[in-house]
């Protein structure tokens, strides 16, 4: 995947790529591929690994992105799932990101072929396409506990009655009490599918959704939802309503956990004040379709505008 990205980035004139080091062998394989020289006809960018230590903790991603932003990166390609993208979004500021789905929960990032993604990211980073037409500002859920920011969540924030974060995954729907989503696609998998199957909300819509949940035995309605790969569970629903940016949402239970983008992250007790807000000021993502459409119209990859070869 990375070598495809490098081929594409080189093809559109990107001279330098910053990469995060790792201990899992990815950086090693990239170094080896670079040392072996790219295939004939391809010019790869110079690959520079960030000077940072790896602790194998989430903060590694945060430090890497901080380094990339500080170095003036024009775009960041993120290989990971919702959790990784959430970490990136917390520190990338206005640097555009291109999330490619490779993680555990993958509602936010898309499944796209890496070569095309590389072309799109390269064209954006090189400033060859206008930002206004090719970048998309995402919604986020800001989660505060006692006034301190603990978010954002890019897709969903779920409130559950479990006392402990435990092994983090959410697979017991009977413990869910509330679900807030930034968007909800009917064909999604994960907690946002609950909202997506009730009242789909697009990424482009200005609002999100709040769904109040309770055990199916006592709920007004029940829904079969694919809340995890291979897990279709009955979920009890008592209320669905739209939520709008800036309006503070409170949680209904006094003690429990908050799952951000499908992973339990925060334990709260009765003395904690939890507030959740939908925000329109999330990360900028590169829209591959918009970029490549613009590239075709402008002939960015042909050296001339395409009217001679386009539709009559």
């Amino acid at each position: 995947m990375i070598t495809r990205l490098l081929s594409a980035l080189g093809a559109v004139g990107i001279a330098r790529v910053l990469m995060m080091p790792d201990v899992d062998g990815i950086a090693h394989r990239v170094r080896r591929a670079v040392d072996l020289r790219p295939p004939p006809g391809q010019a790869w960018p110079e690959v520079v690994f960030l000077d940072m230590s790896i602790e194998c903790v989430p903060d590694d991603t945060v430090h890497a992105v901080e380094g990339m932003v500080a170095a003036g990166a024009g775009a960041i390609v993120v290989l990971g799932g919702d959790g990784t993208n959430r970490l990136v979004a917390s520190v990338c500021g206005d640097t555009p990101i291109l999330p490619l789905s490779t993680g555990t929960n993958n509602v936010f990032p898309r499944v796209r072929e890496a070569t095309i993604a590389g072309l799109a990211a390269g064209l954006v980073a090189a400033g060859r396409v206008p930002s206004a037409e090719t970048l998309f500002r995402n919604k986020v859920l800001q989660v505060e506990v006692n006034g301190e920011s603990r978010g954002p969540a890019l897709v969903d924030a779920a409130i559950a009655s479990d006392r402990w974060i435990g092994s983090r995954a959410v697979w017991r729907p009977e413990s869910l009490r509330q679900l807030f989503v930034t968007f909800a696609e009917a064909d999604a998998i994960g907690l946002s599918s609950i909202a997506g199957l009730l009242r789909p909300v697009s990424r482009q819509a200005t609002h999100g959704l709040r769904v109040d949940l309770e055990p199916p035995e006592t709920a007004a309605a029940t829904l079969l939802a694919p809340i995890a790969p291979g897990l279709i569970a009955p979920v009890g629903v008592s209320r669905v309503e739209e939520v709008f940016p800036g309006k503070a949402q409170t949680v209904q239970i006094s003690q429990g956990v908050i799952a951000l983008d499908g992973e339990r992250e925060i334990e709260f007790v009765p003395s904690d004040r939890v507030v959740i807000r939908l925000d329109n000021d999330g990360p900028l993502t590169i829209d591959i379709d918009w970029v490549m459409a613009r590239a075709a119209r402008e002939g960015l990859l042909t050296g001339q505008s395409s009217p001679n070869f386009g539709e009559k």
Partner: protein
Amino acid sequence: MELSKDELLKAYWIMKAIREFEERVHVEFATGDIPGFVHLYAGEEAIAAGVCTHLRGKDKIASTHRGHGHCIAKGCDIEGMMAEIYGKKNGLCAGKGGSMHIADLEKGMMGANGIVGGGPPLICGAGLAAKQLKNGGVAVAFVGDGGSNQGTTFESLNLASVWNLPCVFVVENNGYAEATASKYSVACDDVSDRASGFNMPGVTIDGHDFFAVEEAAREAVRRAREGGGPTLIECKVNRYYGHFEGDAQTYRGPNEVEKIRESRDCIDNFVKRVTAAGVIEPAELEKTDREVAALIDRSVEKAKEASKPDAADLLTDVYVSY
């Protein structure tokens, strides 16, 4: 079902007992009074406690060379353990096994094991017995990252899957097989990645987090008891001491252990969370601390005073009479 207050207090007792036991053995070993080698479990307490919290008397565990924590968590007598480590006649194995072979079959502890990867085949046998006897028993193997690379472990994962045995394989990945980093020696990113190759669920969790371990273990043990077959749980953790006492740990980074003790200690983490949640009062934990400290002191005193085996004991506990 979440753990009750009593269960959480018991888990704390177990973790504290392991920690105090290991820290004391670390001190006493330096005097030269303890024969053989010891391999300390300090830092990994949440794993033994989190897994064994869901095991009953009829369930079996097989351990590694780093077995003191598993012994304590499975309910072995601490005074008997200390006596065994000192090689004394009243030890759990009559002073003949030492640290690396502590066992108590009555408690379902099939033994600490000096053979790397020696535990998994044993629990396949224990799991098969439970299945044949239909007694609802579960067998758990603890194995290290080094042990996870052994052929015996691979064979056991396969057999447990093929025979649908009520087994749980707990890989305690502390990052080092002796002095070899698991980042080098384990070919996949996570040991749990191997589970799908054996058609069983696999999960990687933070071994410093008692609640993560117990939740994963709860599901795996429930699944095994209900006939759902084996599970592989990888717990990523750090050991505080060397592979063995006397290991200079030149292979670890500067201040590596200190940083982990300060920021990720499993007992500190547990205390912070149970007191913040209002489940257990600090005074109750302090009472446990005092009880455990007194027990460890007593066990060392008694072990030092106890007798060593006699020459006649050489001819007992063997298969052949001479």
